């Protein structure tokens, strides 16, 4: 115990100051080291090669994650734009099919329009009169037209009138696209009713012509007529869409 007390006994030689300074330095370094180890965690006390390894791992991981981000965002973009574009394209294609179908006569059409009933007791109304009527209706903005008549078997038959429709005179009446029809005829027309009716009524027009042949043309306006007769779609033999 006496030696320990001698160690702790105050002395004031120069070397004692040095010892005290060294011990103070040790305490200082100890505290600083403990403090920095606690506060900075693993990285500051890690050695250079460990740090390099950690950095490598982090780089690899961030590379992998970046690739993942890139592929996922590409997928996302493909899905959003792809599905959006294809949906829009599909909708547009459907719309065009419907519109063209009305023109080509492959889909039924309904809307405001007129019914034009033409009687022909003397069998004098020829195909040319009906063709004039049809042209008049087209000029008046008819969008969908069907022509009804009594077929050879006695039933009322409707034929869709499209661009290629041909009207040919027949013994008992007319032939429309290969279908024989007899009076009374009836045009069902989708379009502006008043314009269509006015077109029928012009002097020297359809109504007058039919009357001259001993028949009668009756125009009935309607807010809703239905052109239900369809025409099979025949693919063109020579023409190809560009």
């Amino acid at each position, binding site marked *: 115990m006496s030696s*320990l007390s001698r160690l702790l006994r105050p002395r004031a030689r120069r070397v004692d100051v040095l010892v005290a300074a060294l011990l103070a*330095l*040790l305490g200082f370094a100890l505290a*600083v080291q403990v*403090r920095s180890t606690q506060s900075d965690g693993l990285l500051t006390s890690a050695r250079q090669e460990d740090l390099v390894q950690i950095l490598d791992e982090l780089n690899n991981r961030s590379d992998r994650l970046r690739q993942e981000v890139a592929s996922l965002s590409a997928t996302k973009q493909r899905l959003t734009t792809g599905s959006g574009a294809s949906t829009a394209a599909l909708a547009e294609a459907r719309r065009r099919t419907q519109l063209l179908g009305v023109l080509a006569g492959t889909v039924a059409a309904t809307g405001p329009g007129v019914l034009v009933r033409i009687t022909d007791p003397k069998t004098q109304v020829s195909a040319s009169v009906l063709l004039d009527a049809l042209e008049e209706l087209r000029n008046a903005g008819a969008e969908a037209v069907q022509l009804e008549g009594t077929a050879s078997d006695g039933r009322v038959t409707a034929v869709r009138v499209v661009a290629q429709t041909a009207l040919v005179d027949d013994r008992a009446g007319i032939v429309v696209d290969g279908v024989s029809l007899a009076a009374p005829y009836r045009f069902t027309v989708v379009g502006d009713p008043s314009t269509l009716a006015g077109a029928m009524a012009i002097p020297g027009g359809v109504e007058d012509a039919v009357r001259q042949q001993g028949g009668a043309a009756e125009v009935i306006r309607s807010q809703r007529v239905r052109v239900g007769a369809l025409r099979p779609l025949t693919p063109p033999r020579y023409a190809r869409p560009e």
Partner: protein
Amino acid sequence: MIPAVALVMGVVLGLVLHPTVPAGLQPYLPIAVVAALDAVFGAIRAQLDGIFDDRVFVVSFVSNVLVAALVVFLGDQLGVGGQLSTGVVVVLGIRIFTNTAAIRRHLFHA
């Protein structure tokens, strides 16, 4: 008494000033601290043995710290810094244990 007070003062200063260790010193500071601790325990043992010498203590303290730091520095240059610093810590730890065992025998006679 003065050295103990100085040690406590150093600890307090380190805690209060809270300095950051320079990056260049960071690998060496823990080794240097362990080496200095070894010198201190050796000094206490020598004191108890009655062979304590101030000059020996100062020289052994400084040389301990410098040699430990040098060994670690060399290890870093050779690419075995991690292993060498572990080795230094192990050796110094063993010495500290030996010294504390001697101190214990002196103080408690056991």
